[in-house]
């Protein structure tokens, strides 16, 4: 039996307007993306709408993704999160974000993770979960509000009733910890990180 094509191989075929390959790619990637969207957005109808937008963008930009050697899993996940957070803010009747938004960068693909990098990370997701669980609870909570509620540091401070400076330093400490641990995770297969 021939090996299953990678998502990037399917995307090359989709870029050549192979609808069957795109359909296969959807079957493979959509459940993960929808799970993320359901975690961020208030209801399934909106999540499915955003899911369609994400895959339409993938179809439209398939050639560019392929040319830039983008990891489909990472690209689509980052795009989905950015779109979901923007949509969430519209749903909350907020105008454009007072602070930066990820989407301007997502008009470009050259900086996104490569397939080999994500393949390596996917093999270490369990270790990464352990890393997240090692974070102090207030830091983990603030980080989850940033990742899944799309809140800015000011909004997180308001929500938690904490001073902005404390929230900011907590988020930075969490990110530093994750970055440091991720470097270790990438170098090991052992569970004792």
């Amino acid at each position, binding site marked *: 039996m021939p090996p299953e094509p990678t998502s990037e191989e399917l995307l090359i075929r989709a870029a050549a307007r192979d609808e069957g390959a795109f359909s296969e790619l959807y079957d493979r990637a959509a459940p993960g993306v929808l799970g993320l969207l359901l975690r961020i957005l208030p209801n399934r109808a909106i999540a499915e709408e955003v899911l369609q937008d994400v895959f339409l963008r993938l179809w*439209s930009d398939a050639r560019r993704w392929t040319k830039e050697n983008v990891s489909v899993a990472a690209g689509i996940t*980052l795009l989905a999160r950015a779109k979901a957070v923007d949509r969430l803010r519209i749903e909350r009747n907020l105008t454009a974000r007072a602070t930066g938004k990820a989407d301007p960068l997502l008009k470009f693909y050259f900086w996104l993770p490569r397939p080999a990098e994500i393949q390596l*990370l996917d093999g270490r997701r369990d270790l990464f979960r352990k890393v997240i669980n090692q974070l102090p609870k207030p830091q983990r909570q603030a980080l989850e509000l940033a990742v899944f509620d799309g809140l800015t540091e000011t909004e997180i401070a308001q929500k938690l009733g904490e001073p902005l400076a404390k929230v900011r330093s907590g988020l930075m400490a969490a990110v530093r910890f994750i970055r440091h641990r991720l470097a270790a995770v990438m170098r090991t297969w052992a569970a004792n990180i």
Partner: protein
Amino acid sequence: MGCQHLDEYYELYLLGTVSEGACHDIREHFERECPYCVEHLREAAHSIYLLTMTARAARPDPKQKAQLLKRLRKK
């Protein structure tokens, strides 16, 4: 100007969490394809990817796929 002052911000920038000052600097470096910032943004994207992957997968309604395929045929 070097980029080390941005080290703390790449992940938080991608999350849309940080103040405008840091955002402006990162965007400026990104626009001129600063190799240091591009590399650090890519590494930050690894962390964001893994953080988002902690969400549980969910099966989409098959009607959604049919509708999507219909829409892309019109494109």
